């Protein structure tokens, strides 16, 4: 009943209600997007896109799922779209961007004396890239189950609602995603380190 009233206020474009919604969900949504994109700025931009979509389409929300589930579905769907876009980019351009970003980070770390060792920082970055590339190789459903299961407070039941799957299949997906991720890491380890 309370949620119905809240949704009604959102439909009326009540700014106080939207402020409440944004404050409650901005960080969890950001973390879902980051789980896919592994880039803070891109994840934050995508979080803005998610809330903008909610603002635009709240009048079409049919309340078949909870508001929370609906928003997470938008976040997952937008993140997967963004990943598809990235995959379609030329590999050379993608690596060039990466190298430039790393070089800029390294330069910044060298100018600031109180920051950690640049070599150590680069190694940390390399590890992040390795994790991201390994995650990218997981099947889409496994990756979604894995990313959502990382979120604090997100139960398997909630993941099942978001992914429209049974509870047992989510348990199995999360388990398999971890197994496969480890195997992918083992297979590719020597290419990175």
């Amino acid at each position: 009943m309370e949620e119905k009233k809240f949704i009604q206020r959102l439909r009326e474009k009540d700014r106080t209600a939207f402020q409440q919604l944004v404050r409650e969900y901005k960080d969890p949504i950001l973390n879902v997007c980051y789980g896919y994109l592994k880039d803070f700025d891109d994840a934050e931009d995508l979080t803005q896109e998610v809330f903008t979509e909610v603002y635009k389409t709240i009048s079409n929300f049919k309340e078949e799922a909870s508001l929370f589930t609906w928003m997470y579905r938008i976040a997952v769907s937008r993140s997967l779209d963004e990943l598809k876009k990235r995959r379609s980019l030329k590999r050379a351009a993608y690596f060039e961007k990466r190298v430039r970003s790393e070089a800029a980070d390294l330069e910044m770390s060298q100018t600031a004396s109180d920051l950690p060792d640049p070599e150590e920082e680069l190694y940390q970055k390399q590890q992040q890239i390795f994790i991201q590339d390994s995650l990218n190789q997981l099947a889409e459903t496994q990756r979604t189950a894995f990313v959502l299961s990382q979120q604090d407070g997100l139960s398997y039941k909630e993941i099942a609602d978001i992914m429209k799957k049974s509870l047992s299949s989510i348990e199995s997906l999360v388990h398999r995603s971890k197994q496969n991720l480890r195997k992918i890491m083992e297979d590719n380890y020597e290419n990175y380190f």
Partner: protein
Amino acid sequence: MKSEKDIQTHIGQLMKDAEKPAFLSTSDDFEEALFARFDEIDNQNAPKTATIFTLSEVRKYAAVILILILNVSAILFYSTTSDSEQTTEDISEYSEEYFPDYATLTSLE
């Protein structure tokens, strides 16, 4: 060259990093930027109206149009009435000229 044991330990650590990444928070200006976007959407959706005439101009033009309508109506009324009289007179005149026996013929009926 790392030993197999070292590799497995490192992968175990990387798995932990992947499973429990640091919880991130949005930047300080996140909300401000987002609500600016909402304003933009609202402005795009607002009905577009363009002012062609102000209310005083509309009143002025309405008065001019009303006076014109009254004048044209008066002229039309006058011309119609005088035309019909003229026409009756013309008919009588022409009928006498071209049909001199018209009165005789009609009187025979």
